């Protein structure tokens, strides 16, 4: 065997198992899903395969599907915006104000909850937010006579739960880019008379932008595809594109419609990734 051939077989031998696996479990399934989305009915039980565009047509003509898509996108915007508003300052404090061993410990504390099961965290919010739950009791204790508030099964509950799930992403990505800012840059600006606000606007935000943007994508994409969080926390307010897709497979059994809606969701995700590609590529190189 020649050297070049040996080299080729080594590469194939090392990479083929992983990529065959990914083909079987990611790329072929996505193709099958696309195929299903053009079928009149799922081809089970010897049913004839018949093609149609009616599921995509349904998306274009039935306004409730568009409303749901818009609701999912809005949810994504709200959750991402709050994560930015909370996560960026927290990351700044962590990266620039806390020093030494404390920083390491606090950083670990921030990412630790992230590693607990997402479902379990959503479940715990249902206990916290329900009427006569922990939050309600605490409010009654501080201000007796306050009308009981019921955040369970509401839109804010969904937002709170999702922010809780995804906030560590934002803190993590912002922390990584803010940490890289040279302290002497900030010192120089200050000694030249820049105000705190100017430093924030001209140095910290621009240099923290890659982290902000990466964090936003990492949050926005999964949130628009979320389904169990809105279902558990939102009740009737929790009907989103994701929950409707779930229903097609677990309750209504209209698989082709579910496949078409999933594919539309995938297109939205791909559009977002395409727009942010220059940025992701930079992050990928750095990784």
């Amino acid at each position, binding site marked *: 065997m020649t050297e070049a051939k040996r080299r080729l077989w080594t590469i194939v031998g090392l990479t083929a*198992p992983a990529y065959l*696996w990914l083909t079987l479990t990611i790329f072929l399934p*996505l193709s099958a899903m696309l195929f299903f989305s053009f079928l009149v009915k799922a081809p089970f039980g010897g049913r004839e395969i018949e093609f149609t565009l009616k599921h995509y047509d349904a998306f274009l003509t039935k306004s409730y599907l568009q409303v749901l898509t818009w609701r999912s996108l809005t949810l994504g915007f709200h959750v991402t915006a709050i994560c930015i508003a909370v996560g960026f300052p927290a990351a700044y404090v962590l990266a620039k104000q*806390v020093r030494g061993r404390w920083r390491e410990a606090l950083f670990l504390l921030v990412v630790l909850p992230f590693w607990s099961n997402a479902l379990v965290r959503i*479940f*715990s919010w249902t*206990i916290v937010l329900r009427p006569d739950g922990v939050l309600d009791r605490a409010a009654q204790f501080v201000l007796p006579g306050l009308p009981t508030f019921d955040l369970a099964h509401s839109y804010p509950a969904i937002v709170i739960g999702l922010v*809780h799930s995804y906030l560590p992403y934002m803190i993590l990505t912002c922390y990584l880019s803010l940490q890289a800012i040279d302290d002497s840059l900030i010192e120089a600006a200050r000694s030249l008379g820049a105000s705190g606000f100017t430093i924030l606007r001209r140095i910290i935000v621009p240099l923290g932008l890659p982290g902000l943007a990466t964090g936003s994508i990492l949050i926005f994409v999964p949130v628009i595809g979320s389904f169990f969080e809105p279902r558990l926390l939102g009740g009737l307010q929790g009907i989103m594109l994701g929950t409707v897709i779930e229903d097609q497979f*677990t309750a209504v059994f209209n698989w082709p419609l579910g496949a078409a809606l999933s594919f539309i969701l995938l297109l939205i995700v791909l559009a977002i990734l395409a727009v942010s590609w220059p940025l992701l590529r930079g992050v990928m190189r750095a990784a």
Partner: protein
Amino acid sequence: MTAARIAGLAGPLVLGLVLAFLYLPIVVLALMGFNESVHYELPFRFSTRWYERLPGNERLITATLNSIWLALANTVIATTLGTMAALAFARYRFRGRTLMRLLLFPPITIPWLIIAIAMLVLFFWTGIGRGLHAMLLGHVALSLPYVIIVVGARLASFGVELEEAAASLGARPLQVFFRVSLPMMAPGIVAAALFAFAISFDQFVISYFLAPPGVSTLPVEIYSAIRKGFTPEVNVISTVVIVISMGILLLFARFSRFGGER
């Protein structure tokens, strides 16, 4: 100077509030596992009855064992295949390398809901079917990219010089691999394995869609328990899950600083 002092206090305050927000539900969850009331009623009365009852809850125990076995199998397969691919990427430049690395992103970036449904459609259609084997297929697919990235980061942190030196001193390729490459890669592999275990053990969405009636993993069982009406036993098992997951992360942090500065 007062402005500076306020600014100095604002920092810890922000961080403190964020941490309180992050830990509030987790603490409440854990405490409610020790509360006597079935309906999580307050005031709090300490009791360990839910912990005592857990071993008798066969459904939860079976689901937990399923989760553990699944996570172990996933760890072995994903770590092995992923390390092989990472080795190829780190040691060879070849055509299609960039494209292949790019193909690692779909499993990470596409929402799990879409991936899960795509798997369900294909597996059901082709007769692979649903069940623990189907979940294993899915979990490995989600873990592979992370393993390749984590092990790849470790491999990138040292060059090929040692391997070349060993080879030039007469070591055969397998000897080079087991005596030189593998020990150097070890911290990355351990970190990747912990990562893979946690991904599988915490995975809900894929398992949920690929679970046939009667077969479930712990997260799937928790989901149906929540929807059917809670019982504090779910709190107990959730607390245990959180402790395990966080323990794994702490181990992970010891072995790699999230991709390896060390």
